[in-house]
C-alpha cells in the first residue's frame, strides 16, 4: 500500500468518538417508545362488558367465543384494523366470519379473530397479547407454520403475513394465501412446528365469487418470452398470472424486478398489493418461471378493457432516493404538489375528526397507484404522524388518508415524493377486452 493510501485508510477508519456516540445514544433514547397506535380501537374494561353481550346476542356467536373475543383489546374488526387493501375490501363487503379461537402462549393469548375466503384468497386475522415476551412467535407465524385443509397438508407456496404493534405488548396481524381448488367450506388448521407447538382449527366458508379470464398471449423480449396466462377477478383482489422462459444470457437474470401497471379504459390505475413467483433452471440452461401479481379488486362492474404495462425496477438502486419531495402547508385552500416525472398530487380538503386528520386528494399522472400512496404530513416541528395504512379510494383518481393524533393547534404540512417515470417495456404491453 502506498503511503498516501495508508494515510487515507487510517483517516477514514477512526473509531466513533465519544461526542458522536453520546449523540447517537441520546437520539435513540429520545425515540418514542411506541409509534402512534390506533387508539380508537382500544377497549376499556367497562366497554368490554358491553361488547361481550353484543357479540353474544347480536352476532349469534357462541358464549365461549364471545367471551374469548371480549378478552382481546380490540373493538371492531382486526381484519380491517391491520389488514391491507385486500383485507379491508373484503371486510367492508361483509365477507369476514368472526371466529374467536384462542391458544395460550406463555402468559398471553393468541386469538384468531376472523376468517375470510372469497373464492380466490383465504385470510385469517389474529391478536397476540404479551407480545414482547412472545416476540419469537411473530417470526414463527411467518416461517414455521403447517397448514392443513380438512386434515390434509396444503401445498401452499406463499403464506403472506402482515402485522403491527397496535399497543404496547399487543401485536395484531393477518395471514393469507391464494387458494388452488378449495371446497366452498372447509376446516383450516394452523399448526406451529418446533418449540411451543400449538394448533387451531378454524372453520372457513366461501363468501363471494371469482371470475377468471384466460388470456394466453405471448410476447418476446431480449432472449425471453412472456405469456399472460389469465386475469382473475374476486371480491378482494385482481390477479394476473404470467409465465416466462428466460434464456441464460437474458438481462432478466440480473438484479431486476418486473412490476405491472394495470390501467383500464375508465382511467383507473389499480393499486398493487403483493406479488410472488420465481425462476427454475431447466436442463437446457434456460429458466422457466411463474409470477402472480395481485391488485386491488374491481367493485361492481368490470371495465370494457384493461391494459397491462410492465416496467423494470433495479432493486439495487430502487431505494436510492435523495430527499426529493414537494411540500406545502395547508391554509384552507386546495393546492397542487409536484411528483416529479410521475405527475402531481392535488390536496382538495383537510378535515379534523376527533383528533385525527383526514386528507382528501387527487392524483394525476403515469402511475396513480404509486402516486396515491406517496403522502405524509409533518407539524411545524418536523414530527411525522402515523397514517391508517392503505389509503381509501373514493373514485378513479380521488383518495383519502387519515393521520392519527395530530395536535389541535398545529398547522399541517403535506408532503409527497418526486418520482422518476417507470422504465416501461413497451414490447410487453398488452391490451385486452374484459367484457
Amino acid at each position, binding site marked *: 500500500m502506498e503511503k498516501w493510501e495508508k494515510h*487515507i485508510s*487510517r483517516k*477514514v477508519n477512526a473509531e466513533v468518538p465519544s461526542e458522536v456516540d453520546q449523540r*447517537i445514544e441520546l437520539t435513540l433514547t429520545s425515540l418514542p417508545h411506541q*409509534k402512534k397506535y390506533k387508539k380508537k380501537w382500544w377497549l376499556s374494561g367497562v366497554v368490554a362488558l358491553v361488547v361481550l353481550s353484543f357479540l353474544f346476542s347480536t352476532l349469534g356467536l357462541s358464549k365461549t367465543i364471545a367471551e374469548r373475543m371480549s378478552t382481546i383489546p380490540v373493538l371492531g374488526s382486526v381484519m380491517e384494523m391491520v389488514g391491507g387493501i385486500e383485507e379491508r375490501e373484503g371486510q367492508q363487503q361483509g365477507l369476514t366470519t368472526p371466529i374467536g379461537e384462542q391458544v395460550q402462549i406463555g402468559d398471553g393469548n393468541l386469538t384468531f379473530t376472523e376468517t375470510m375466503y372469497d373464492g380466490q384468497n383465504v385470510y385469517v386475522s389474529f391478536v397476540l397479547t404479551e407480545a414482547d415476551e412472545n416476540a419469537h412467535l411473530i417470526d414463527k407465524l411467518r416461517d414455521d407454520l403447517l397448514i392443513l385443509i380438512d386434515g390434509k397438508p396444503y401445498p401452499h407456496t406463499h403464506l403472506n403475513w402482515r402485522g*403491527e404493534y397496535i399497543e404496547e405488548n399487543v401485536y395484531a396481524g393477518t395471514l393469507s394465501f391464494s387458494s388452488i381448488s378449495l371446497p366452498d367450506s372447509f376446516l383450516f388448521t394452523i399448526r406451529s412446528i418446533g418449540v411451543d407447538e400449538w394448533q387451531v382449527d378454524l372453520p372457513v366458508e366461501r363468501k363471494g365469487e371469482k371470475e377468471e379470464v384466460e388470456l394466453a398471449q405471448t410476447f418476446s423480449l431480449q432472449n425471453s418470452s412472456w405469456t399472460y396466462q389469465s386475469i382473475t377477478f374476486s371480491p378482494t383482489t385482481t390477479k394476473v398470472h404470467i409465465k416466462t422462459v428466460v434464456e441464460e444470457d437474458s438481462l432478466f437474470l440480473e438484479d431486476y424486478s418486473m412490476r405491472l401497471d394495470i390501467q383500464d379504459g375508465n382511467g383507473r390505475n389499480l393499486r398493487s398489493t403483493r*406479488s410472488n413467483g*420465481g425462476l427454475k433452471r431447466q436442463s437446457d440452461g434456460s*429458466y422457466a418461471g411463474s409470477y402472480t401479481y395481485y391488485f386491488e379488486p374491481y367493485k361492481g362492474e368490470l371495465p370494457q378493457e384493461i391494459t397491462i404495462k410492465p416496467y423494470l425496477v433495479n432493486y439495487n438502486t430502487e431505494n436510492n432516493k435523495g430527499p426529493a419531495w414537494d411540500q406545502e402547508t395547508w391554509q384552507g385552500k386546495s393546492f397542487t404538489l409536484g411528483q416529479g416525472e410521475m405527475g402531481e398530487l392535488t390536496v382538495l380538503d383537510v378535515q379534523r375528526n376527533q383528533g385525527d386528520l383526514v386528507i382528501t386528494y387527487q392524483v394525476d399522472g403515469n402511475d396513480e397507484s404509486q402516486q396515491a400512496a406517496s403522502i405524509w404530513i409533518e407539524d411545524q416541528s418536523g414530527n*411525522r404522524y402515523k397514517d391508517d395504512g392503505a389509503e381509501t379510494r373514493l373514485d378513479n383518481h380521488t383518495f383519502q388518508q387519515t393521520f392519527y393524533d395530530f395536535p389541535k393547534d398545529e398547522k399541517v404540512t403535506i408532503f409527497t415524493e418526486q418520482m422518476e417515470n417507470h422504465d416501461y417495456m413497451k414490447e410487453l404491453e398488452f391490451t385486452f377486452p374484459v367484457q
Partner: protein
Amino acid sequence: MGFRSLTNEREGGIQLNVVREVNKAKKGNRKSFERLVQEYKVVMYRVSKTIVGTDEDCADATQEAILKAFYSIDTLREPKYFKTWLLRIVMNECYAILRKRNNVIDFDSIDQHLLIEEKGFEALEVEDLLQQLDPHDSKVLHLYFIEDLTLKDMAYLLDLPENTVKTQIRRAKQRANQIFTTTEEGQAWKNGKNTSQGK
C-alpha cells in the same frame, strides 16, 4: 425482488438477523431499530466523516439520519438493503449540512491528532496534496478505504454500476499516485538529488 425469486428467502452472504431485525423494526419494534443503529453506527460515522469533516457535523448528520430512518423505515421495501439505505440517508443529511455552509469543508477542521500521530511522513503535507485531487476522486478514494463498505455498497451509494465504480477507483488511484510521485520527485530535485538520473 429479483426475477430469480420474488419472495424473501435465505441467500448466501445475507445476515438473516439483520433482515429479521429490520422486519421487526418496520412493525414498530423500537428495540430492533436500536440494535440496527448500533450495528451500523461505526460505518455511519465513517461515511459522514468523509463528507462533512468534523465530529460535530457528523453528530448532527447522524442524529437527523436516525430520526428520518426511524420514521420512514416502512418505506424500505427490501430489508436486506437496510445498511445502504441508512447510509444513503446519512449522506443526504451530510450534503444538507454542506449546502447550509455553501459547500465549504474547512481544512483546519481535519483531525489534527491523527495527523500528528503519523510518523515518518508529513501527514499535513499528504492532506494538503490530497486536496489537489478532483473532489469526486477524493470521495471515491475515501469511501473505498472504509473497511465496512464493500464495492457493492459503494456502487449503491454513488448510484453507479459496480464496474464503473471499479474504473473510477482505479483512475483515482492513478491520479493520486501521479500527484505524489510528482511531489516526491520535486522534493528530491529540491534537495539536490536527481533520482531519475541515478546519482
